[in-house]
């Protein structure tokens, strides 16, 4: 058996100085950051009123609540709940569609390849950003002040907050589109509107459709929660049953939400594949 040659330690050391003698600042960076993160964490626990006693008694309570939830039982209000679920799905669908319809023209203004001048683009983008900074629940509260309690406020809340998200996503999709087809239209004498209609829209429409479907899916979740502030749907029922401590109904409602979300997931992924094709997704 031949022995492997004895490595020349000195030479290797000299060659890979960085690996053997890392400067203290580089070596200490990770532990220092972890220490800092841990410190803020401990401070946060103390400041937010965590205490082992509270945690234990809370967990005890939570255990009780979980036991009370079993088995899930809607009592006699199943038809009411089914109607509320339908309302929630309607809110998600309508809100997303409205948002997409309004976001499409605005996203053109925010796309670099359509509006080259920053003077228009910049304010539009900041405007969309600030709408996005406000949560859907807050929009729901504002709309309740305007159109009153009920699912309609929910539709408008989802429409407004998604409008901003769509504006950003659509404009990114438009910026990612291939410029060559647009140039082709321009070369054959098309106007700016023709360029958008025949050069851009066919390219970005499948991407946009995919995003809209994805949002309908995630809005089913949002639509369940905006009911909590009074904007209709199944969230309203859920919040009410939690407040009156009807735990069996609560668990039944949560189960309903889970099943509905899973069903919408399944349907929309089917539709997405049908629209964009399996290859584009993978």
């Amino acid at each position, binding site marked *: 058996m031949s022995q492997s040659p004895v490595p020349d330690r000195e030479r290797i050391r000299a060659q890979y100085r960085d690996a053997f003698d890392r400067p203290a600042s580089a070596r200490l960076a990770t532990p220092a950051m972890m220490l800092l993160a841990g410190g803020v*964490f401990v401070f946060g626990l103390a400041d937010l009123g965590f205490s082992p006693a509270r945690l234990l008694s809370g967990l005890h309570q939570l255990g009780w*609540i979980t036991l009370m939830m079993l088995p899930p039982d809607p009592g006699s209000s199943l038809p009411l709940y089914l109607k509320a679920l339908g309302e929630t799905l309607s809110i998600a*669908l309508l809100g997303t569609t409205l948002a997409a319809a309004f976001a499409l023209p605005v996203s053109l203004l925010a796309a670099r390849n359509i509006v080259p001048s920053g003077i228009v683009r910049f304010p539009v983008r900041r405007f969309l950003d600030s709408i996005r900074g406000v949560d859907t629940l807050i929009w729901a509260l504002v709309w309740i002040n305007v159109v009153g309690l009920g699912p309609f406020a929910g539709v408008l809340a989802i429409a407004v907050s998604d409008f901003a998200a769509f504006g950003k996503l659509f404009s990114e999709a438009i910026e990612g589109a291939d410029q060559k087809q647009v140039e082709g239209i321009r070369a054959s004498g098309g106007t700016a509107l023709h360029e958008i209609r025949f050069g851009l829209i066919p390219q970005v429409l499948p991407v946009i459709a995919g995003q809209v479907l994805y949002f309908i899916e995630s809005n089913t979740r949002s639509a369940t929660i905006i009911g909590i502030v009074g904007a209709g749907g199944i969230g309203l029922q859920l919040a009410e049953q939690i407040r009156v401590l009807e735990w069996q109904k609560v668990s039944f409602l949560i189960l309903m939400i889970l099943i509905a979300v899973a069903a919408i997931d399944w349907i929309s992924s089917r539709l997405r594949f049908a629209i964009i094709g399996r290859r584009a997704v993978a």
Partner: protein
Amino acid sequence: MTAGVPILPQAQLGALSEAYRGAVARRRLRFAIATAVFLIVLVVAAVGAEVNLRTLFTYFGNFVSYFDRILKLDSGARVWTDFGEWFWGWHKWLRMLGETILASYVGTLIGAVWAFVLNFFAAENTSPVQWLRFIVRRLLEFARTVPSIVFALIFVIAFGLGPMAGVLAIAIHSTGALGKQFSEVVENADMKPVEGVQSTGASWISCMRFAVLPQVIAGYASYALLRFEINVREASVMGFVGAGGIGQELVVAIRKFYYSDVSAILVMIVVTVFCIDISTGWLRARLFGKEARA
């Protein structure tokens, strides 16, 4: 020069254009049917959601004037003419905002730690046993499908009012979301280093620590930062159900029609979310930049 495109004989051309027209007509028909179905579903949904266009038109003025009202002080002047009056409660609001950020930080960290512990069991390529993987996956799914504000509602009853319920709700939701994203990162990792470490007789834990972790840690950090950003938004509304933070002040201001307070708090929230977006974006770019250089 007259050498143009050769023109096909009429019979051949006719057949081809016929086929083309047929294909286009089929596509148009399919599109029309899909649109019709979609419109019908929309109308059904509109009836279900009690959409009333008349209400909207009657009250749309209210929506615009609402923004007019929240930008006015009690004295009737515009808010930006007197910042001291507009942000009269800034001391309290800043403290609440700090509480919100702290709550989302603590919640994200707890969630990230749990996700870190669980994700190796959930990933297809590293899970030691099949049934364990199935259970962990279902758990994560449950944690991420139930909206965090629903958890908050339940926790407020179990743990009492205050930010603790909000933190725990955020932590659970983050565990679910991050657990899934982390396990996807692990599934994309290169398995050759794992084989290398395994061939030296290392245990499962050593394999994860020395072969998988160095590959995935940057991805983890990036996802955790992104989640922190999302959680700041979520934490700002936790107060609506009594789970602490700036949301409590906001909901009081909206419900009691303290108009200028609403705009002041909203401005503070939006600015905070901006700052956090920008700083986490910068941090993520730095982390990834470092990875690329190494």
